[in-house]
């Protein structure tokens, strides 16, 4: 039975049809989408979330005869605002308000292509495409109206979901036109609106998910409930790569409500980790059953791994020649002959994503090889791919329901927990909701890679740069997650942005030294830039200090003589932060910027030092360079959030290991910044419109910590080269 048929004919188990799904996502009021799609026969494919192949314009918009307008959102919302900003791009050109539309999350269907929120790509990657989708549909609706009225197109316009005939004042709603419009060919080059006429894009439009999220009505993956559903809690080994020898389940089976145990493997990238799931009729019983389970693990030699030892290895490797990722001029000669030489080693740790919603997933097998998944994930397409690859079922036999994510930050790009739930539910004759504990979420990775940076600079007597080197020493994401044996390709992702800053640095030679590790590592918000930017921008500050120059003016006057986005950004920062205004005694301000794949942002941080050697952050100024902005308030929120996350990574948390086991377990020993520690962040957006459009979610992260550390240097003369540091005792 193909999936399409399966959906039309309610499954014997679960019985969760589209209507139920839509209610679950908080879109109550929307019936089954039985209306007319833009291409005959297409609506079923959309509704049933089954595989038509081509991406076509109409797949994003459904208007039923009652006038209900549904817009498909291919970008999962994990708090970054895509539930509003992505449909907004369609709605703007379609000439409907956001209040008029229903938003439906896509489920990894092929016609929507990439459906992953990551890489700060949801807006910049969809801006032209989705506007075109909306504009094309609007033109078809107008054309349908002109055919009915027999009037020229030039006499008609659309607004608020209605087509108007200017001379006569006649009007027809989109619902009334949907059938006829659906029969028209899709215009391939519709005319896009002049941005000056935008009603939604560029405005602080309220987000439709906010009312749901303050009333308990937003449905996250963990909130899914299916009839007859069972719960699973999983015993994983906190020592990676251990083998499960045996387990003693007598005490587990004595827990009331426990049904059975399922032995399976957690599949994370190329890794397979042994695990045992306890299935019960309540989560609490499943969890109690797991606590009572005695598992015998064979650590297989992995219980000796220790972060302190590993860090020493990285320090030793910093003296080694690595893969040259960038070489310009003759670094060695220029450095050795430079009158002033500067070297420093920066050490950045592993960290965990720790979204507030622990990993979870609900899975239901409709028969032998048809699977339905409900999950908080950053990418429905990736959920399908990972399950299909690991469980050996066709991709099209998997239906994915994406719900709101309680945070992602890169963690939910990796859908090991969805594969887990699918693996467990395969052995259970009921839908199963699997929920990880916070301890598992903290301990099991994948983690942000640790990176050490060996920095070298040669300066002239008057402080001009003569030679520069940033050498990154680290394990790599690909080598651990995908088990790549050839690590030569890892050098570019692990040296993100270090060779492409706008700074004019002659004789620059950047390198990458690979270090083996068995801990699973992965992208964390702003990926490698979240660590290498700290070394890069603090070291630029060290150069300015050595040159006896103001660090912002050094960047502007010495390193950025030519025009660039970076120079413009720093000039804006200088202006908005009142950089030249004197500060009280004991205060200091620091600046940093970073440009990388996701975009460009920069901070000025002001701190004061207390007499107990503590540091108080007084004020934070941020400038983000976007080109075009869809929702400025959401951009500000994302920057405020990135600053908070960066502050936590700078002053709170590192993931460390003893005896092969993650030392940190929960928020008591893996603390996050709390409300009293978070200063005001003043966000300025550079957005003059035009075709240039940059990312939002990540550029607010990398430059925060270096700006903070540079401010602390300005206030105290103390240089911070290792994170995290204790802000109360610098």
């Amino acid at each position, binding site marked *: 039975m193909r999936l399409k048929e399966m959906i039309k004919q309610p499954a014997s188990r679960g019985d969760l049809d589209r209507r139920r799904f839509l209610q679950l996502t908080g879109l109550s009021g929307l019936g089954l989408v039985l209306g007319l799609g833009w291409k005959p026969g297409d609506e079923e494919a959309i509704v049933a979330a089954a595989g038509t192949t081509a991406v076509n314009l109409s797949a994003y918009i459904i208007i039923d005869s009652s006038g209900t307008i549904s817009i498909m959102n291919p970008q999962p919302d994990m708090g970054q605002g895509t539930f509003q900003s992505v449909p907004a791009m369609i709605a703007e050109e379609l000439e409907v308000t956001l209040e008029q539309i229903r938003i439906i999350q896509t489920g990894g269907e092929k016609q929507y292509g990439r459906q992953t929120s990551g890489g700060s790509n949801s807006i910049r990657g969809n801006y032209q495409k989705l506007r075109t989708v909306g504009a094309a549909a609007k033109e078809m609706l107008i054309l349908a109206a002109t055919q009915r009225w027999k009037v020229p197109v030039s006499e008609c316009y659309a607004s608020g979901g209605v087509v108007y005939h200017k001379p006569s004042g006649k009007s027809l709603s989109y619902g009334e036109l949907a059938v006829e419009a659906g029969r028209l060919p899709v215009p391939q080059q519709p005319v896009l609106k002049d941005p000056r006429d935008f009603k939604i894009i560029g405005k602080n439009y309220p987000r439709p998910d906010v009312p749901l999220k*303050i009333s*308990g*009505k937003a449905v996250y993956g963990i909130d899914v409930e299916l009839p007859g559903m069972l*719960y699973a809690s999983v015993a994983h080994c906190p020592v990676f790569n251990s083998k499960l020898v045996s387990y003693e389940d007598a005490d587990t089976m004595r827990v*009331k409500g426990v049904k059975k145990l399922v032995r399976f493997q957690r599949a994370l990238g190329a890794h397979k980790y042994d695990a045992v799931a306890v299935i019960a009729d309540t*989560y609490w019983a499943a969890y109690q059953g797991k606590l009572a389970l005695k598992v015998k693990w064979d650590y297989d030699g992995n219980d000796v791994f220790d972060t302190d030892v590993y860090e020493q290895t990285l320090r030793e490797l910093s003296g080694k020649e690595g893969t040259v990722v960038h070489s310009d001029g003759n670094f060695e000669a220029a450095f050795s002959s430079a009158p002033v030489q500067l070297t420093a080693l920066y050490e950045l740790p592993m960290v965990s994503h720790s979204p507030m919603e*622990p990993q979870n997933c609900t899975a239901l097998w409709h028969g032998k090889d048809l699977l339905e998944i409900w999950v908080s994930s950053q990418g429905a397409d990736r959920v399908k791919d990972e399950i299909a690859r690991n469980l050996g079922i066709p991709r099209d036999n998997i239906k994915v329901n994406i719900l709101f994510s309680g*945070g992602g930050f890169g963690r939910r790009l990796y859908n090991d927990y969805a594969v887990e739930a699918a693996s467990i539910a395969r052995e259970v004759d009921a839908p199963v909701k699997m929920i990880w504990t916070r301890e598992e979420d903290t301990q099991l990775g994948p983690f942000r890679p640790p990176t050490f940076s060996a920095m070298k600079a040669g300066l002239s007597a008057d402080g001009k740069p003569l030679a520069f080197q940033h050498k990154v020493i680290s394990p790599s994401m690909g080598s651990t997650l995908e088990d790549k044996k050839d690590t030569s390709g890892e050098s570019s992702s692990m040296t993100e942005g270090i060779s492409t800053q706008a700074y004019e640095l002659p004789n620059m030679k950047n390198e990458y030294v690979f270090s083996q590790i068995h801990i699973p590592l992965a992208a964390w918000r702003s990926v490698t830039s979240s660590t290498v930017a700290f070394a890069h921008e603090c070291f630029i500050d060290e150069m300015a200090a050595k040159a006896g120059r103001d660090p912002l003016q050094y960047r502007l006057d010495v390193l950025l003589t030519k025009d660039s986005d970076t120079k413009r950004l720093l000039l804006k920062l200088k202006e908005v932060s009142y950089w030249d205004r004197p500060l009280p005694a004991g205060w200091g301000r620091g600046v940093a910027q970073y440009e990388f794949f996701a975009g460009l942002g920069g901070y000025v941080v002001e701190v004061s030092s207390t007499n107990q050697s503590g540091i108080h952050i007084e004020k934070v100024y941020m400038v983000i360079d976007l080109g075009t902005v869809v929702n400025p308030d959401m951009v500000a929120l994302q920057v405020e*959030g990135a600053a908070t996350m960066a502050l936590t990574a700078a002053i709170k948390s590192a993931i460390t290991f003893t005896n092969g086991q993650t030392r940190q377990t929960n928020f008591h020993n893996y603390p996050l910044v709390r409300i009293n520690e978070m*200063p005001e962040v003043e966000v300025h957006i550079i957005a003059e419109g035009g075709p240039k459009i940059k990312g939002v979610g990540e550029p607010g992260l990398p430059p925060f910590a270096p700006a903070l550390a540079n401010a602390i240097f300005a206030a105290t003369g103390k240089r911070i080269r290792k994170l995290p540091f204790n802000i109360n005792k610098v």
Partner: protein
Amino acid sequence: MASITLTVNKKKYTIEADPQMPLLWAIRDIVGLKGTKFGCGMAQCGACTVHLDGEAVRSCVTLVGRAEGQEIVTIEGISDDNSHPLQKAWIEFQVPQCGYCQSGQIMSAAVLLRENPHPTDRDIDEAMMGNLCRCGTYTRIRKAIHRAAEIMNA
């Protein structure tokens, strides 16, 4: 297993549950109200905050038995239509990002405003430091609480 009567949002529920089960799971999985969230299971994060006789109790460490005979209010019970001053202010400042912690944030803020209708920034810290937000909505939560106080006192 025991038969336990809970009063949640003024409605009575008689449930069969292990008396050792935390109130959180009874509310979510048995009563069926999902607005109260699981974050840490050890009273570190505040995502599970509900009102128990008016106090902002962490339901993940509160046994369901303790709640018997007391008034439980969850996020679903503070208003039917987002008309609570905190909800109004939360909308005005567009506070949530992922939103997962916000039920707990609002339940904590409600106790603060009941006991202190004119909170200072420090009062807000002292009330809200038990509620973690990974997305970083803290500065907006602060503004929204001040705004909610204005709405309440108007």
